[in-house]
Every structure is written in structure tokens, then in C-alpha cells.
């Protein structure tokens, strides 16, 4: 099967600091890729490069054949296909849950107010907070806000979802509800790249795992194989630490 998201020799620096040192990765349609590794190994930066929120210095990133780092690529259009969920859920504080989700379909896709609200209500129900439509984010728990963020991304009907440590900022008792929502998406066949520290999720839900070490993919392969029998010494040490 052809890769729908492909990174070839991607290099990215912040000033003198090179954070991605030649990343090669492929994600196929319907696949869930978990990206693991220590903080600062470049995992999140790679996600930001995939939807063009961060420019790269070398290499190529293609999404459905479109080169993300090509100057002529319409990134606003491309991003409609790529949903993203952040560590800090970033809900719009001045809008109700329903308005948070309905905003982009209305202003980006040009849907009518009522059509956008209909989609928003549907997606909020889908992630299990259909009873919170008129609540402002400030009155929601972290787990609910993160599910709101997932609904907001889904409302654009993306083909791919990027998760940037979506559960890292949550209180431990709220992690489960967000992971369950992500599991549900995976089971529905969503193509996902998940940067995570949740090894259980990586093992049980993802098809593939990529281990990042100091800006490089040090080991990659089928999730269960890589996590139960890691070859790289760094990955062995990393897994011993997170367990």
C-alpha cells in the first residue's frame, strides 16, 4: 500500500540547534503510528512540520502526494485534511463548546451557521460531551476540554489526525477518557500519528511504533514487536525508565 504521509530525510533547526537530523517515516492509510522517545528528542517538532506549522530546512514531507514544504502549497487548504490535538488543549476561551467546534467549519469551509452547529453537535456527542454544548471551556475538566479539542479537529472531517502528547497535561484520573476517545477513532479507521508517553496505548492501539532519539528515528517497526523486544540499547533503557 502506498504511504499517505511520508517524510524523507527531514531536517529542522531552531537557530543553531538541530532538532530533526534526517527523519524518514511512512504512514499508510488507516494506520496508527505511535512516536515515542525522551522529551526533546524532536517528536512534537516533527508533528508541527507535518502540517506546516513549522518550516523545515531540508528533506521532503508529503501528505497525499502534496509536498508540505513546497512554497506553492496552500497550507490552509492542506491543514483542513490534517486534524491536530495539542498537549495544552487550546480551547477558544471566549466560545462555548458548540461554538468552539462550529467555528472552523463555518469560517474555513464556508458552511452556514446552522450546518456548522449541526456538525459540531454531532462531533461533541461522538466524543461523549454532547451534554456540554453551551458550556464555556473554563467550566470543563481537562479531559473534557481535550475531548472538545478532538471534536473541534474532527469537525473539519480530516483524513489524518496528529496527537501531540494529548494526555501529558492531564490529571491521571482524566487520562483514560481521552485515551478511550483516541482508541475509538483508531477503531473507526482514522489514520493517526500519536506522540505519546503512554506505552500501553502505543502497544495496544498502534500498528507501528517509531522511537526517536536525539533527532533521529532510532528504531521503528510493528508496535508489539518493537516494544516487547527492542533492539536499540537506548530504547531498552527508555522503556525500562517509563515502565
Amino acid at each position, binding site marked *: 500500500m502506498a504511504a499517505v504521509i511520508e517524510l524523507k530525510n527531514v531536517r529542522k533547526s531552531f537557530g543553531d540547534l538541530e532538532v530533526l537530523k534526517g527523519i524518514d517515516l511512512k504512514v499508510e492509510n488507516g494506520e496508527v503510528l505511535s512516536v515515542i522517545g525522551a522529551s526533546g528528542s524532536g517528536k512534537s517538532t516533527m508533528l*508541527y512540520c507535518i*502540517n506546516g*506549522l513549522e518550516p523545515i530546512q531540508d528533506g521532503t514531507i508529503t501528505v497525499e502526494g502534496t509536498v508540505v514544504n513546497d512554497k506553492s502549497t496552500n497550507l*490552509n*487548504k492542506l*491543514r*483542513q485534511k*490534517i*486534524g*491536530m490535538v*495539542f498537549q*495544552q488543549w*487550546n480551547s*477558544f*476561551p*471566549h466560545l462555548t463548546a458548540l461554538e468552539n467546534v462550529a*467555528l*472552523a467549519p463555518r*469560517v*474555513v469551509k464556508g458552511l452556514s451557521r446552522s450546518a456548522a452547529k449541526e456538525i459540531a453537535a454531532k462531533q461533541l456527542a461522538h466524543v461523549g460531551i454532547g451534554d456540554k454544548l453551551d458550556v*464555556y471551556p*473554563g467550566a470543563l475538566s481537562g479531559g473534557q476540554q481535550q475531548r472538545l*479539542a478532538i471534536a*473541534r*479537529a474532527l469537525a*473539519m472531517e480530516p483524513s489524518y489526525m496528529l496527537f501531540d502528547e494529548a494526555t501529558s497535561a492531564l490529571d491521571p484520573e482524566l487520562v483514560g477518557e481521552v485515551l478511550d476517545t483516541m482508541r475509538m477513532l483508531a477503531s473507526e479507521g482514522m489514520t493517526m500519528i500519536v506522540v505519546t508517553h503512554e506505552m500501553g496505548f502505543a502497544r495496544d492501539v498502534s500498528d507501528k511504533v517509531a522511537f526517536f532519539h536525539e533527532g533521529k528515528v532510532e528504531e521503528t517497526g510493528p508496535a508489539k514487536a518493537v516494544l516487547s523486544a527492542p533492539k536499540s540499547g537506548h530504547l531498552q533503557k527508555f522503556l525500562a525508565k517509563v515502565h
Partner: protein
Amino acid sequence: MDPAGNAFTDLSWVDLLFLGEAAIRTLQISAVSIFVGTVLGIILGWMLAAGNIVVRLLVNSLLDVFRSVPLIIQLILFDSFVSIAGFPMPAFWSGTIVLSVYTAALVAMVARAGIEAVEPGLRRAARSLGMGYWQDMRYVVWPVGIRAVFPSWIGVALSVLKDSALVSAIGYIELLRASQILTTKTQESFKIMLLVGLFYFLMSYPISKAGDFIEKKWQQ
């Protein structure tokens, strides 16, 4: 005429009406200046927040001039300058221009603070949904930023309303100038100043209350 040959007259209803008209002129010059100054100030504030180093340096130095020179001196300098340059204009217009630029210099700082008050994460989230730069500005930065700095903007508006008294220095007959004229005529300076103070209060208080109301409404 009383036996002592006093040339002064008592404070009358006509004088009160005169003060009322002057108060309306104070409101007019303030409203126009606050409006124009706010629009201009938001553009300058955006340049300060989003511009490159050259733009920021240029705008900042320009604004420093207007913030550091006392308003009364700016008014007299500009009014004299346009006369000398051969484009004399009514005191209302030279006053409005100077007061607008002065307001813009103050609003620019408020607007910059408002833009910078918006979490970068919110803006990334907006962009990740496919919103363009101006959609992010319109639907996220503007509403979130304005909530953060609205009280400061009300403060600027109130201070401009009061500072508009300085336009009296170039002969525009607003509230303060009118009170000076009446004082000369009636010698009742205490009563007149009390009245003028009351007029300023009556104009400021509703603005301040409206500000509180809007702020509360936004706090949900």
C-alpha cells in the same frame, strides 16, 4: 448696575446653557479623537506585535515622541505650524488631529499588549484548523485580546476625555475654555469650577460604568 459700579454679572441660566454647549463640544472632540485614535492605534499596535525589528523600532521611536512631549505643547506646536505653513485650520480640526495621534500612541501599547496576551497555542490551534492569518486575527486574537485589555482601553478613553481640556490652549471653546470665559465675566470661579467638574464627572461616569458592564458580561 449696582452702586459700587460692578461690571460683572451674576451666573445665569444662559451661562449654564453656554457651559452645556461647551460640554457637548468636549464630547464631540473626544469622541472623534478616541475613535480615530483607536483605529490608528490598533494598526500601530499590530505593527509593534507582528512587525519585524525595523518596523518595531521605527514605530516605537515615533510613538515615544508623542508619549514624551506634553500634549499641550504638541497642540500649540501643531496649531502654530499649520498656520505658519499656510494651512490654518479651525481649532477643532487641529485639536482633533493632535488628540487623535496622542490617543493612537496610547492605544498602540494597549493593542500590542492585547495581541501578546493571546496564547501562541490558541493561534497554532486556529491555524491547524485551516484558518488563515487574518481569520486567526479576526476570530481568535481579536476577541481573546480585547477581553484582556478592554479595561486599559477604557482607561485611555477616560484620560483622553479629560485631556481634551488642553485643546482650550489653542482657542477651541470646550468645557474648560468656556469656564474661563464665564469666570472672567462673573468672577464666580469656585461655583463655575464645581459645575465644570460635575460636567466632566457626568461624562466620565457612564463610560466607566458601561466598561464595567461589558467586562462583567465577558467574564461569564
